[in-house]
């Protein structure tokens, strides 16, 4: 470093660039401060909190039943999973099990939601890297599922489908047929996305070797969900600690090998197929019975605390509820998968080019609503 160091435009030392909160590719209001050395990223710092709405504080002010719709707004893409996790956590605390019919409906809706979440992920990931058409194709399929959701509960995105103790809405006439029609075409559509991307040199060039994180690092950083499975760790809460009616169904857990963006892409594609498989099994044998467990209208769990987690499309979504015996929770903690996953961005991005940062943010599949709550 000479003493006469001028700060010119083309200074070779580090510059800090901010991928500011408003950016087409950061899937929400996320600010990533990048320290660059020319084109290479040395360090990345995420600034979050732009979407903080105080959901956990609301959990202390609202009753258990009132709090469920608030949770839809957290991970607004996979709203059904949020609902499922919380309802199951409170049910655990109340020592109540939802009836089998409700469990099956829950599984079907959650898996359909997993498909929509992954479709949205694929669309936005592809469009960030330039493959615009995949985005439109994914949304075409997503539209079909959103129509099913709308027919079922009246809402497409923030669905509030389940209640503590079961589900409120009965499945409508024609539900099973509509789901079957969707499932008939869906595997072919996934193959269609594959023809556009999987063997494409440019796609492989943009995703192979990008954002590598070893299994050990991943577990150390708390990465969960498809990102963890892309690193070779075969762990899925639906198999490890089955909840709802998942133990009744046969499905595989796709696992990647090279821990890079391409493998995470393949893992999520395969997960879509497996979700379709679960739904096709479930929709055939929905048991009869009541929809809600017999419990008192006023939900007053016993004193104590509980932790329950489910496999949301983004990772391990956990709820830690401390109850003081009253109708409002004493503390509701949401363990958001995207929040913990986003920490790994720092490690994944080091040494890559600026253009790869976009790919890596896409592959982590984050939702700012969940990160900031």
């Amino acid at each position: 470093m000479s003493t006469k160091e001028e700060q010119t435009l083309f200074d070779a030392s580090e510059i800090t660039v901010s991928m500011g909160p408003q950016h087409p590719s950061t899937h929400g209001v996320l600010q990533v401060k990048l320290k660059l050395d020319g084109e290479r990223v040395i360090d990345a710092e995420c600034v979050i909190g732009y979407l903080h709405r105080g959901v956990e504080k609301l959990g202390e002010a609202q009753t258990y039943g009132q709090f469920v719709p608030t949770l839809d707004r957290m991970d607004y893409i996979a709203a059904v999973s949020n609902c499922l996790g919380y309802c199951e956590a409170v049910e655990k605390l109340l020592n109540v099990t939802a009836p089998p019919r409700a469990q099956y409906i829950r599984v079907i809706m959650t898996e359909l939601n997993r498909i929509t979440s992954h479709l949205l992920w694929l669309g936005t990931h592809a469009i960030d890297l330039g493959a615009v058409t995949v985005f439109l194709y994914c949304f075409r399929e997503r539209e079909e599922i959103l129509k099913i959701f709308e027919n079922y509960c009246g809402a497409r995105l923030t669905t509030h489908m389940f209640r503590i103790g079961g589900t409120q809405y009965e499945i409508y006439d024609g539900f099973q047929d509509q789901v079957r029609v969707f499932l008939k075409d869906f595997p072919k559509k996934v193959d269609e996305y594959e023809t556009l991307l999987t063997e494409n040199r440019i796609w492989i060039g943009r995703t192979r070797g990008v954002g590598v994180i070893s299994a050990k690092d991943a577990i150390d950083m708390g990465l969960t969900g498809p990102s963890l499975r892309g690193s070779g760790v075969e762990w899925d809460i639906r198999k490890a600690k089955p909840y709802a009616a998942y133990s009744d169904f046969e499905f595989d857990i796709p696992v990647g090998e090279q821990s890079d963006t391409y493998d995470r892409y393949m893992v999520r594609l395969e997960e879509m197929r497996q979700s379709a498989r679960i739904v096709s099994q479930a929709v055939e044998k929905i048991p009869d019975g009541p929809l809600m467990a017999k419990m008192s209208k006023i939900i007053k769990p016993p004193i104590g605390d509980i932790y329950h987690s489910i496999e949301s499309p983004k990772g391990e979504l956990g709820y830690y509820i401390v109850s003081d015996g009253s109708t409002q929770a004493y503390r509701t903690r949401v363990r958001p998968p995207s929040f913990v996953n986003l920490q790994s961005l720092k490690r994944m991005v080091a040494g890559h080019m600026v253009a790869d940062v976009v790919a890596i943010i896409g592959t982590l599949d984050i939702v700012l609503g969940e990160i900031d709550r």
Partner: protein
Amino acid sequence: MDFAIDYILIPFIKIFIVFNVVAGVVALLTLAERKVAAWIQVRLGPMRVGPYGILQPLADGLKLMLKEDIVPAGADKWIFTLAPVISLVPAFIVFAVIPFGPADGFTILGHKISYFITDLNIGVLYVLSISSVGIIGIILGGWASNSKYPLLGALRSAAQMVSYEVALGFSIIGVLILAGSLSLVKIVEAQKAAGFWYVFLQPVGFILFFACGIAETNRAPFDLPEAESELVAGFHTEYSGFRFSLYFLAEYASMIVVSCMAVTLFWGGWLRPFPSVHNVVLDFLDAIPLAPLFWFAAKVVVFIYAYLWFRWTWPRYRYDQLMKVGWQWLLPLAMANVIVTAVLVLLLKG
């Protein structure tokens, strides 16, 4: 008098026609891009303005012209205004040498009218050098914006275009060896004499030429410098309204230029398939008035469609991969193509 008519009036009329046709095609191209994109993406595209959205370019043009004229603070106003013009004009000037048909076109009132404006005997050189001037427009645009990111984006675009120009030039040499002339008209006539469109004799050259052409015009998959989702938003960040539309039109005009060149150099220009075969059907096709124009236009349309098709299908290359492809793959391949062509020509002719 004859001189005035042959050398001033007729060229003027031709220039007028060509200019308007090209401008019209460029305008239609904006609509075509949106329509083709829409059909690939399972939707309809512009449908409201005019039947099936045909008048959309009019609406777009009007909108862009009526927008507020924003010049960034501290920007050099003259250069800021001039830069898009510098990009646009060369793209149009190139059409002076592109042959839409043979020299012996048709005769009106005793004056022979050819299907091109002029036949420069260094036509290829003219095209390459004039289209290079367009790069200056991009650099000036980025620089005149007085902002870090447009400048970096402009430099990136310029670096990309310059790199691919080299490979572009090399890919054409094979054709020049075969045709023995730099004049575009003579190249097409050489294809007629050879009986084959040069794409069958120079397939590698064609692929290289078209790939480099796509990179030249900053189109997908080589459009990272101007992509929206990247960090550096590109040289035209600060441009809006009419000036932005000039850059836009310049890009489409260069697309048409590259397509026309590809057609002329490799796909037989105005020639019909099997150009040297004569039989009743094919001669009848030749006799249709303005037949060469039809063949030329049809082939150019195919290439323009290919341009649009690629943009909406493939993801985009990262910048370093882009440069790597240009320098490490296309250029050596183009050089190898030249050597192989030269050797084969020598062997087969000697």
